[in-house]
């Protein structure tokens, strides 16, 4: 087994437990442990793809069959297969963009197979003139593109449990994805219909089985919401709302109504099932928080994370994601000693508002048990809380909007587990 390079062992720590200066990777081009092993050169005649023509062209590319395990993890209702979630495998991905086939899903009653020629968006209620738009018409409107995360309000809810759940990062925190969304600013359509000044709510409704409906303040709709038509450059996938969905930057996923078919402008919220009985947070007092729209400041180390193993003491790159529905990420700190000391991680460009931000920091693991944590701060000064602080404030029955610091324990054999 190769020994760690001597210069790695002498680099000064910037925080306890072996965290190194975040600029080191850039400055010195350090090799990571995972790439360090030296192997014998392979003879080229053992590689068949060098000596026979490759596969022909394909109309739509697919991942390598060797990557078939990089897949969404599905958790569905045993009686209704289309009722449930699928999680983005965050620990298998890099950068900040989620491939469209791996974007998380939450469906209440399956994915409708919509013929775009028969789908219409109707804008009605307290407007000067109720209007109906077909898909072709909307495609002719001015559009805007924006890279945005979408996070389910129920993401990470296993964090409320008394014991740390032992599952991969994506299987717990992967109701979170990030894409470039392109569509028509809703303000344009609202202006075209002419909105009553005394009607501060819009009820959005999908064309799925059950016509899911949610109330959203008109001010947010006007400010930055989109009728999303494209996801990462291509038309939406059916499971992400084809032919159109609402994009509500920084707010909880359930508001990004998929298969959008109706917008009713009203003077009051409809008090739908999903904004009363669900997506409200029961507090220790017995009262419940309602209309908690913004997804709070949060971060997650994706590498190393649960289920992975560090092969030997060496220098590793700790890498993860940070995001906030309030705006840009300003800072991510990482701790390797369970939160006793913290070092600033490097934020990788682009750092965009309401978008995932990738952070990285080098870490020298000495082979002893360690606890890695990350905590994010956004441009409004919101700091991701410790779990104990979140629970002290909200109790453990809130179910939604869990944004506490996530901790990974490294055992002396290199195995990574979830801890509190």
């Amino acid at each position, binding site marked *: 087994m190769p020994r760690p390079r001597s210069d790695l062992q002498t680099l000064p720590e910037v925080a306890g437990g072996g965290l190194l200066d975040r600029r080191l990777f850039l400055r010195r081009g350090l090799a990571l442990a995972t790439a360090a092993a030296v192997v014998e050169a392979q003879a080229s005649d053992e590689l068949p793809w060098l000596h026979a023509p490759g596969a022909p062209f394909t109309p739509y590319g697919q991942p390598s069959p060797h990557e078939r395990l990089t897949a969404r993890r599905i958790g569905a*209702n045993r*009686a*209704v297969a289309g*009722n449930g979630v699928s999680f983005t495998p965050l620990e298998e991905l890099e950068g900040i963009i989620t491939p469209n086939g791996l974007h998380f899903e939450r469906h209440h*009653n399956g994915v409708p197979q919509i013929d775009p020629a028969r789908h219409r968006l*109707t*804008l*009605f209620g*307290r407007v*000067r*003139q*109720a*209007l*109906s*738009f077909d898909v072709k*018409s909307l495609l*002719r*409107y*001015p559009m805007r593109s924006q890279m945005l995360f979408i996070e389910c309000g129920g993401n990470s809810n296993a964090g409320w449990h008394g014991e740390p759940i032992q599952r991969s990062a994506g299987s717990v925190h992967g109701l979170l994805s990030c894409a470039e969304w392109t569509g028509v*600013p809703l*303000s*344009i*359509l609202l*202006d*075209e219909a*002419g*909105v*009553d*000044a005394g009607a*501060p709510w819009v009820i959005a*409704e999908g064309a799925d*089985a*059950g*016509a899911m*409906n949610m109330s959203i303040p008109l001010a947010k709709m006007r400010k930055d919401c989109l009728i999303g038509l494209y996801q990462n450059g291509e038309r939406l996938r059916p499971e992400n709302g084809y032919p159109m969905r609402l994009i509500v930057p920084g707010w909880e996923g359930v508001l990004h109504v998929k298969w959008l078919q*109706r917008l*009713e402008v*009203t003077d*009051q*919220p*409809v*008090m*739908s*099932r999903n904004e*009363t*009985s669900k997506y*409200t947070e*029961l507090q*220790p*007092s*017995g*009262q*419940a*928080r*309602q*209309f*908690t*729209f*913004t997804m709070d400041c949060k971060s997650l180390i994706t590498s190393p994370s649960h289920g992975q193993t560090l092969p030997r003491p060496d220098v590793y790159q700790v890498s993860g994601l940070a995001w906030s529905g309030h705006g840009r990420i300003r800072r991510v700190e990482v701790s390797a000693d369970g939160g006793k000391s913290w070092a600033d991680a490097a934020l990788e460009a682009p750092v965009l508002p309401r978008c995932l931000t990738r952070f990285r920091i080098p870490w020298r693991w000495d082979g002893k048990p360690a606890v890695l944590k990350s905590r994010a701060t956004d441009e409004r000064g919101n700091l991701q809380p410790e779990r104990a602080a979140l629970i002290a404030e909200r109790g453990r*029955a809130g179910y939604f909007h869990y944004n506490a610091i996530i901790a990974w324990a490294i055992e002396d054999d290199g195995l990574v587990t979830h801890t509190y």
Partner: protein
Amino acid sequence: MGWSRTPTEGAAALLSSLLLSACAMAPGAVEAPRLGQAVDGVALARQQLNVFPDGRGLPPGRGTVSEGAALFARHCAACHGKDARGGSAEELAGATRPLNTPAADKTIGSYWPYATTLFDFIRRAKPMAAPGTLNANEVYALSAWLLHINGVVSADAVMDACTLPAVRMPNRDRFIRIEAD
């Protein structure tokens, strides 16, 4: 491609506008093609599904607790349990642990703030295998039975567009609006 400001067939209908005053374009508004087609308000009212706490959106019709019991057994009990205490789908009734205790029961009777939500949700989403197939009388009846087994209305209650919004749910005032007025 280019956008024109061609008026559509919707433009004529602007003249017959109803309610509204402050409809001026916002400053800096984008030049847009105005391709929305005017929609007939009567046709819209027929298909719209939103039911509000004040009863707006409720259709004519009525349903009783006993009618609702039979409908629940037929359409709902397989997932929600015979007494609506939960199965493969969530519990709807029978709360024993109060909301201010650990593992509280969030049932219709213990948690839901508005009775109209029952009609809004059942009509659009239930039963899961055939959403939107129950008629108004059936939805009123199911609402009546669910309210009754939650101890909110009596066994002889009749639900309709007047009585349902008048039901005061026990947990009505226990919600704190965080980001809305």
